[in-house]
């Protein structure tokens, strides 16, 4: 009972941690706060101003969509591409197709993601879409391998044979059973991958390769205002806290999900 309660508590905390930044990101831009710009790193307003004299609170409200959107978008795209390739490679009965899908990605694995991202970022300046795609791209090979490995286990299990014996549909087998079996490893991976994506987007901005340096984006704010950290800490800490809250909450939720999907019986006691 206690355990259960603890579980729900941690789900609650997780939802809260994810919820605050997501709500701010989604509904923030709708909040009609209009503050006259002041001087850089001044303490005017609730959270002071940033390096361009803009109100930090107002920036927080408008800066979440890109910050979270790019990271989430990148992971979603990486999973759409990598997950699909992985599932197809795992479920195909043609070895050539499997090899043809996996080997090229293997070749890409040692390609430093930094290089790819800087090239894309230099090539398509300050485009949120381009950066999202680049971050997604560097994640595709690992996601593919992960999904394929997890799906291969499931796809070669007698359950799938039994389902085929019952003439279950492709969707039923691959999205229903195999997809769900992949969910555990994916949930475990998702948390860290989102964290990495958030971090990757932030470091792209840190390097000045990302969004326009004046964009009202949380990640940009963090990297651009770090110089004024000691003058006006909130300009860095407030967006950083929101990002940390998001990734932390997300990981806690993923852990819970994992906890539920993994519970396999201990064979020996039966």
């Amino acid at each position, binding site marked *: 009972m206690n355990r259960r309660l603890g579980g729900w508590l941690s789900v609650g905390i997780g939802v809260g941690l994810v919820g605050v930044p997501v709500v701010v990101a989604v509904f923030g831009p709708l909040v009609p706060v209009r503050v006259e710009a002041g001087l*850089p790193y001044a303490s005017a307003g609730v959270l002071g101003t940033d390096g361009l004299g803009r109100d930090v609170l107002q920036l927080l409200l408008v800066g979440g969509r890109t910050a979270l959107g790019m990271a989430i978008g990148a992971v979603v795209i990486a999973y759409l591409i990598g997950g699909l390739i992985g599932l197809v490679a795992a479920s195909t009965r043609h070895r050539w197709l499997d090899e043809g899908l996996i080997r090229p990605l293997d070749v890409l694995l040692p390609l430093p993601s930094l290089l790819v991202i800087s090239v894309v970022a230099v090539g398509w300046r300050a485009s949120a879409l381009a950066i999202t795609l680049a971050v997604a791209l560097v994640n595709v090979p690992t996601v593919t391998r992960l999904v394929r490995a997890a799906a291969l286990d499931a796809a070669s299990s007698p359950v799938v044979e039994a389902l085929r014996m019952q003439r279950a549909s492709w969707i039923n087998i691959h999205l229903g059973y195999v997809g769900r079996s992949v969910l555990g490893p994916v949930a475990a991976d998702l948390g860290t991958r989102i964290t990495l994506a958030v971090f990757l987007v932030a470091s792209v901005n840190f390097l000045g390769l990302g969004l326009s340096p004046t964009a009202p984006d949380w990640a940009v704010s963090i990297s651009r205002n770090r*110089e004024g950290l000691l003058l006006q800490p909130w300009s860095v800490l407030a967006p950083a806290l929101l990002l940390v809250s998001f990734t932390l909450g997300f990981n806690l939720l993923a852990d819970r999900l994992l906890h539920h999907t993994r519970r396999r019986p201990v064979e020996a006691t039966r």
Partner: protein
Amino acid sequence: GADGEAAAQPKNGGRLRAVYAGGGAKEVLDPHVQSLFVDIARHKATYEKLVELGPDLKPVGRLAEKWEHDGEATTWRFSLRDATFHDGGKLTSEDVLYSLARIADPAVPERVAQSSLATLDLRRSRTVDARTVELVLTAPNAEFPALLAGIGTQIVRDGFKDPTKPVGTGPFRFVSFEAGRSMIANRYDDYWDEPARIEELHILSADSEARANAVQGGQAEYANDMTATFARTASAGRTVRIVAAKASTMQAFVMKVDRPPFDNPDVRMAFKLLTDRQRLVDVVLAGRGEVGNDLFGKGYQYYPADLAQRERNVGEAKDLLRKAGLLNKEIEFLTADASAGFVESATLFAEQVAEAGVKLKVVPGSAQTYAKDLLTNGVIGNHRSGAMPIPQYVTDRLLTKSPFNVTHWRRAGFDAGFAAAQRLTDEGARSAKYGELQGTLRDEGGILAWGLPDYLVAVSATVQGVQAVPPNTLDSGRFDKVWLA
């Protein structure tokens, strides 16, 4: 002057570590290929030029003790100082001619002074005696001494081949160098001017953030080119002092005068009137600077000091824009994170222009290729310039054949007037003519100089004798006058 505490007695000895913005593999030891501040600082420590620039960007003699011309400013005679190279050899006029020839070598295109010294006729130039050299120009130029003070004009030893073994006449003797990291040099005791006070000089490379940490954390005594935000942070503590050269560089927006909508002088004037310069200075420069007046070189020789400051006038600007039919139109502003404050000022400027009903869309480009891109692309962009003599600025950027004419300001009359002024040997007359040309430029040209940033250097509390002067001048980054208290 020296910063208030010059009363303390200079002391000898010690090690000074100066940090500059690094250039990685781009950093060079060849004094004729320099382009970065860190290179310039290094070369200034080990080499010298014939002429340097004073705090008002006026030429002052260094290795050249004095000079005179033939009355037409075509043939120039320079008398050399009694200086010795680090290898013990005396400075002679042969060294000077060799250095100039080395700079002009067409096989090595990256020797930077090649274009500014293009009018020097080396075949007709000659040594008069061991300490006098005669340089002949293909066209008269009263500003020739200033050209010899430009970057990449250091005097090397006759026969100098291997740049990795520097031998100069400067106050420090080369010890070691690693590109992107450090150069170490020791005091040269036979320096012709007063020998340096510090014993050992390290010139190091690091990014802005690391420079700030290093000078605050006691790992460096001198940090070049600091931000206004850092100045604010540092002013809270006692360990670091900021030496600010007031209003010594320029931040501007540049409009291409041959492309719509800026081919219309009214539009250019409207934009100049729309600019809230004070706000730009307060925010982008964090108050560390002065408002600009659409001209380069405030406080320098030949700057027309009597011009009134341009004030913001949105109403008048709107009238002009309406006349030009530009209201509610969108214009792209090409910017890049190539230099501090570029994107910020563009963003802020877009807000200011929007007040008059013109939409300025800020489009960021590649930081590394920005300078080149802006020459050919876009209609309006960012521009910044370090300190240099006004005639040189004009030669580089505002003549029909100027290599860096980013505003596309190409007027035959202006070219002719400038050529005529350069030929005037009387300084007063020259100054008047320059003033006239600059007046035209301010009202009709494409340069919208909105701010004159201070040049900020951070030094440890122990460092004395650092001069608050514009970069590229004699006393900037000059470590032979500095001592550690």
